[in-house]
């Protein structure tokens, strides 16, 4: 499943592609929304691990503008619910993730990202 929680961890790993290789850009995506259980403790624990600007940018690419540019200091329920939706309920089912640096395409098919590289692309 490509949700934004996963996307926030994925960088291009083509041989020699070591800078500006994150976050991957979405193209031609089909998105499905699926409700999932709201778990504020999980979110609070996970926030320090997020690359915030990358998450906000990716959410906006997918048409969700609910997150602020800066991570707020007060983590109230309204904010956590918006974050929960962005991280865990938006599923990219089909599409391509493109490296901003080397433009390598990582296809997403039936919700499964294919991060495999050809033999000559492996570092």
């Amino acid at each position, binding site marked *: *499943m*490509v949700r934004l929680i996963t996307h*926030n961890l994925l960088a291009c790993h083509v041989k020699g592609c070591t800078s500006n290789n*994150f976050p991957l850009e979405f193209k031609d995506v089909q998105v499905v929304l699926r409700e999932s259980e709201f778990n504020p403790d999980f979110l609070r624990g996970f926030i320090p*691990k997020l690359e915030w600007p990358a998450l906000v940018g990716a959410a906006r690419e997918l048409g969700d503008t609910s997150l602020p540019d800066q991570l707020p200091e007060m983590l109230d329920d309204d904010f956590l619910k918006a974050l929960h939706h962005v991280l865990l309920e938006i599923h990219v089912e089909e599409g391509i993730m493109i490296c901003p640096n080397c433009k390598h395409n990582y296809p997403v098919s039936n919700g499964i990202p294919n991060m*495999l590289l050809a033999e000559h692309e492996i570092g």
Partner: protein
Amino acid sequence: MAPAATDAPESYEETHVHDVYDAIASHFSSTRYKPWPIIAAFLANLQDGWVGLDSGTGNGKYLPLPLDRPGRQWTIGLDRSRNLLEIARTCWRSGRAARSRVGRRSRPRLATRSFRVIMCARTGLRNLNSYDPPSSDTRKTKTRSPALVGRRLSRTRTRADICVGDAPGRAFKAKHPHELERDGQDVFVPWVLAEDSTQVFNRYYHMFDDGELAALVSVAAEELGLVIGPAAAEGSLKGVEIVQGGWERSNHFVELRRWQT
């Protein structure tokens, strides 16, 4: 039968590892539904909020664990087999899990720093060791392996549980009397499809010897400049402790904990 060992390693692996798992995915999955107790205990002992990486997730049976605390840990399942991942996706959709398709030597970098990652690479090392045809120089085979362990151990707060297949001559051998032995530890294990017994797939398998896994971990740790042993009392050192290891139910396993002072 096995092709000549002079085949390119990539195509050899494609034929005898990747293609086999894709072909037998459904049947293979149906025989592997029960979590292995050592892995289940490892996951149960981790606190809420940890992020897991299950490298070689297969049908994803570990992804929803621990079952008594649903949604409190988040595990990403990686596998080379598309068909196994499709099964993982269907079976565990309710779990807080993600799956991606990766190769043994083409794993995605995890971009976020300050990450606490746990790992249960149940098949990673075996697959890694299967890279070279059995009759080729075994030293070459072994020097490839630490790369995988090394990358997984590179994060400070990582805890890892690695499990690999057994050496021949124990329970495994008894279960598979028809294995085609080649180079001691490198064997073919026939897989007969339940729905069509005329179809037999020879699955390449590297069987680990006693101490082999721990030796690979040591080599990987040395390459990363890590001290091997319990956390040092003082000084600015980085290390990895082998918390436990052993053999159970045809698998070797080792549990690791990274530390930094």
